């Protein structure tokens, strides 16, 4: 019960903090003071208080988009174990539901973008799904590898399992690299996409949500941070299978790890330039090849 409460609390409260940490890290690299750590919370609260403006050409799909996205992401978050604690919802095959819930969020985001009828947002939607075609195999291969390694089909079983296979070392390294790339790509971070830019040539995710305003935009921003939180937690579980033994310390370790990942993302964004759009598929394919390769190693 306590695990369940802590799980929900973390899922609800922590995500925007990660965004804050990333921004702060980038500011530190740039020699600026930067916005406070809790700025994303203020932004989201401010947006929630505002009134939404909807274009006359849009339909209910446009309004449903942000809500469905947020709901699906939250649902997915209930299936993912945080640290070494089992997830609130867990059953055999929940990894498929997890992956498809994430796909559902993408589906509705792009649908909402298309609903505006703007060619600009349509372009963003096209890019988003193109790149999704390349990241999703990477994620799937990684999940299959983990399932095979642990012999479990639920995320809790897969991720809290400490492996003793001969290939654990190599596979962990491979999946770490692959999932970090997926983490950056799925959450529209540099070098794949720049969440701050508004240049039409380069935008992917930001362009899709341009027409949203007020609470809808708040949902979207919160949903985006939640998605980042999810992928970071997934990454954490694979890259750091250390257990302290004590439940309390495990939670602390998890929180510290998540903040560490946020810093790592910030550092990556600071030291790397944005890739040219034509090079993005190459990186994504690399991630796919890495996780496919780890799958070959494990299935051999």
């Amino acid at each position, binding site marked *: 019960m306590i695990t369940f409460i802590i799980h929900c609390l973390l899922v609800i409260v922590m995500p925007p903090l990660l965004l804050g940490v990333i921004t702060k890290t980038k500011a530190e690299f740039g020699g600026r003071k930067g916005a406070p750590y809790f700025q994303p919370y203020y932004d989201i609260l401010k947006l929630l208080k505002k009134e939404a403006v909807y274009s006359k050409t849009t339909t209910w799909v446009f309004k449903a988009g942000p809500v469905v996205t947020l709901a699906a992401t939250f649902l997915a978050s209930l299936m993912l174990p945080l640290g070494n604690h089992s997830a609130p919802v867990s059953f055999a095959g929940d990894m498929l539901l997890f992956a498809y819930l994430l796909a559902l969020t993408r589906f509705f985001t792009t649908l909402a973008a298309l609903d505006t009828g703007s060619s600009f947002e349509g372009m963003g939607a096209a890019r988003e799904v193109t790149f999704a075609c390349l990241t999703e195999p990477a994620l799937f291969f990684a999940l299959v590898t983990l399932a*095979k*390694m642990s012999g479990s089909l639920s995320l809790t079983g897969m991720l809290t399992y400490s492996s*003793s*296979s*001969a*290939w654990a*070392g*190599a596979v962990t390294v*491979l999946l770490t690299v692959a999932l970090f790339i997926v983490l950056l790509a799925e959450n529209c971070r540099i070098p794949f996409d720049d969440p701050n830019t508004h240049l039409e040539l380069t935008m992917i995710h930001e362009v899709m949500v341009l027409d949203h305003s007020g609470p809808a935009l708040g949902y979207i921003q919160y949903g985006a941070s939640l998605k980042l939180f999810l992928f970071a937690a997934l990454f954490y579980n694979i890259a750091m299978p250390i257990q302290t033994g004590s439940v309390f310390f495990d939670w602390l370790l998890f929180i510290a790890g998540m903040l560490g990942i946020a810093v790592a993302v910030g550092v990556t964004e600071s030291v790397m330039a944005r890739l040219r759009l034509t090079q993005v*598929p*190459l990186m994504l*394919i*690399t991630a*796919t*090849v*890495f996780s*496919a*390769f780890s799958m*070959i*190693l*494990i*299935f*051999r």
Partner: protein
Amino acid sequence: MELVQMPKNLFVADQLLVVVLLINFVMLGSNRLMFCIRAAATQGVILGILPGILHPFSFHITLITVLILVGKGIVIPGMIGKAVRDVQIKREFEPFLGYIPALILGAIMTAAAFVFAEKLPLSPEHENLLFVPASFSTLVAGFLILTTRRKAISQVIGYLVLENGIFIFGLLLSETMPVLVEAGMLLDLLVGVFVMAIVINHISREFSSTDTSRLRTLKEE
């Protein structure tokens, strides 16, 4: 996969071979020549360490290790690197087959190599090891680089990777391969790359480019 208790040295060797395989992918996906050369050199260094890990210490093995480390790790990359600097090119442009198809093809070939290696009648102590699949997929990766790139230097790198693939297979036999022959093979590779580097230099002077698809004068009328 059940846990097979394998000797420590074979375990380490297998992990190193995973790195070798990853380097293949990296090279298939990269167009920066210096980067590819360094990657090939890293591969060479790993191949140099492997005999030392696999076999008990002996003069023979030490000599081979030193020869390979110096040859594949330092001299050959040095020679190609010099050729790259001399002809002043940095990147491969417009390969015959794009990087993404090449990468995917490489991945498929690697998978095929794993499946194929399962079917081969290996001697019992070599089963479940990565040597044979790693050898085949490195070979194929080298061949892919060799045949799909335009720049002469990329082709030489492909040739090197191909040789590395053959060498990995040779590791299964390195205890019985006489050092003289082993050294001879390495020397031939060395001289071969040296000659190729010189030829590249002359090609760039003659054609103002190292694009081998310009070498089209000689053909049947």
